[in-house]
């Protein structure tokens, strides 16, 4: 068998995944923290204040990467849920459900920091603007997935039901993305483009790129840590978890 395929098959085994997650989650968190530290240093101490918005524009360096993550994590969650539903892979169920609280966390950051930025810039904490409203609906979808997964006792049935909600919820992502194009919106349009020229000054762009990469690493670490916890919960009655629990401190935690 192809070594990569064999590795994937082995990773599907709960004890193998536990070892993998225990080993790599700290790396995800560590790299995320280090990368974001560089980005935050640039955002707070290097980049000059905006000529119109003053220092408040520095909020952009946490708001924009979090907003992108709120959408990306939902897409990843739906992808895992679809794989789990089609091929009945238990690990993908676990990974899909582990995405939900992380995505919800990034959505909360997006809404909160946007609101804090909006108060001095727009003169209001909140407006029922298409972008803000659709992002709020995204948060409710995340909470729906978390709630549904927690409400059904059988883990596999719960994951299937919540996964279906995640798959259906994907239709919201393009609506959020293009809400500023389709409707008149108080929220500003696209200023940063992956392909093409961004309208942000290049001297202000680099901390944002560090933050974008840093949040991805963080997500990887958090996904592994949360999936590991759910994997342990599902396998709590198995011998390998008992062996892990009775292992000397530092190995099991």
């Amino acid at each position: 068998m192809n070594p990569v395929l064999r590795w994937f098959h082995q990773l599907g085994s709960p004890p193998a995944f536990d070892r993998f997650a225990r080993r790599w989650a700290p790396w995800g968190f560590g790299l995320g923290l280090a990368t974001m530290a560089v980005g935050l240093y640039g955002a707070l101490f290097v980049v000059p204040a905006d000529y119109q918005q003053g220092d408040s524009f520095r909020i952009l360096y946490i708001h924009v990467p979090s907003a992108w993550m709120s959408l990306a994590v939902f897409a990843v969650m739906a992808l895992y849920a679809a794989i789990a539903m089609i091929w009945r892979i238990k690990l993908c169920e676990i990974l899909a459900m582990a995405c939900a609280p992380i995505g919800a966390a990034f959505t909360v950051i997006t809404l909160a920091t946007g609101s804090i930025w909006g108060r001095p810039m727009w003169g209001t904490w909140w407006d029922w603007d298409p972008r803000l409203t659709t992002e709020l609906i995204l948060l409710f979808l995340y909470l729906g997935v978390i709630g549904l997964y927690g409400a059904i006792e059988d883990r596999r049935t719960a994951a299937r039901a919540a996964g279906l909600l995640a798959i259906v919820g994907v239709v919201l992502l393009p609506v959020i993305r293009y809400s500023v194009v389709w409707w008149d919106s108080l929220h500003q349009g696209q200023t940063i483009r992956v392909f093409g020229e961004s309208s942000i000054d290049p001297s202000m762009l680099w901390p944002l790129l560090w933050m974008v990469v840093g949040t991805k690493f963080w997500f990887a670490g958090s996904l592994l840590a949360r999936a590991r916890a759910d994997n342990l919960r599902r396998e709590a009655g198995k011998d390998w978890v008992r062996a892990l629990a009775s292992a000397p401190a530092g190995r099991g935690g």
Partner: protein
Amino acid sequence: MSYIEYVFAAYAVFMAVLTWDFVAPRIRSAQILRAVRLRATRQAAPAAPLDHAELRR
């Protein structure tokens, strides 16, 4: 026009949420392993001797 207090508030929210995101799964894993350990200890403990005091009376 510095709005520095808004910047502090936004970064505080960011830090607080990420701290929760870091801590929550670790606490959950530790709780599960602790519960498994306690259950194993309970099952391994010898059964308590029957108290026949009631029968002796």
